[in-house]
């Protein structure tokens, strides 16, 4: 059985919330929120994302600004770029990749620390990832 993969092309710009139940490749621009809870999100070499991302796995070959949460793995390939915080049990960052932020690979079930949570105050001259404003209605991919 052939697996469905949806592609958002280079000329496409989406602002808002993106939900899907298929694997998705983005070559265009997306701002807002992307949720593919049980599927693979690939940010292609031309993809430019300013969004909070939630997916099973995330492969980054383009640029992501925002926090990335994956239930399985985040893979930043050569020339891929992530400015934001990553939460995933497995993270791979290639030699030529750019990354600025934190990586949280804390094991599930580990008790949260009352004191260890770093302050969320943004650092001067070390801008954190912007929080996208998902004002537009949700757009379902491949529905």
């Amino acid at each position: 059985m052939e697996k469905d993969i949806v592609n958002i092309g280079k000329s496409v710009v989406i602002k808002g919330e993106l939900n899907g139940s298929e694997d998705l490749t983005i070559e265009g621009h997306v701002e807002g929120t992307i949720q593919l809870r049980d599927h693979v999100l690939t940010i292609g070499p031309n993809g430019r994302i300013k969004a909070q991302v939630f997916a099973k796995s995330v492969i980054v070959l383009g640029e992501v600004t925002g926090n990335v949460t994956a239930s399985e793995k985040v893979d930043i390939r050569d020339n891929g770029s992530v400015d934001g915080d990553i939460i995933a049990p497995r993270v791979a960052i290639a030699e030529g990749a750019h990354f600025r932020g934190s990586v949280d690979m804390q094991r599930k079930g580990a008790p949260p620390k009352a004191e260890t949570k770093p302050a969320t105050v943004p650092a001067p001259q070390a801008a954190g990832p912007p929080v996208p404003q998902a004002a537009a209605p949700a757009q379902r991919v491949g529905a």
Partner: protein
Amino acid sequence: MGLLDRLAPRRPDADAFEKAPAPTVDSVFATKALRKFLASLVASPSPVLIDLGPVVGANISFLGEELGCKIFVEDLFADLDRHVREGRFERFADFLKARFRQASASVDGILCWDFIDYLDKAAALALAGELTRILRREGALLGFFGTAQPREGGYSKYLIVNEVTLKRRPYPAARGRQAILLNRDIIRLFPGLRVSDSFLLQNNLREILFRKPG
């Protein structure tokens, strides 16, 4: 020579920049302090680490899988390079004082690598103060300090091969290593920490593991 005077820059930055070498081959060496650093963190179920070096995917994978930790990658070498190239190094100490967004006593471990070797006195003191502030009680800080001027210039990436082996990969830098620090100078940089272990390696690198008293 007074306290920390050895940290005063003796090499013009421009000179170091012009002589920035092409990347050379990696050198592999045994580390004694890394295992102790990791051992100090395993007691914590979900430790928080800060890596002051450039992002190294292999290190993140290793530390994440070994410790199940949260890692902040704060590439101070890139910050230093930017300040030097833009001619703003004199402001670097002030920059460091405001650089860390982590709350006080919120971090279990700090991988400082050999960053202090590239600083002047003011910047080193500013950094040491901030690292001491964010480190929690019983937290650990691992620092490397040169005991001889290296043959090649530039910064070094340290890649964790395993808990007793590191790989050193030089890369071009805008600022060379500054003066070599003596043990007492290093210890005086961190008055709020105590030296837990100190090792002099065959490659002239001194590994020092600091702990914050409980």
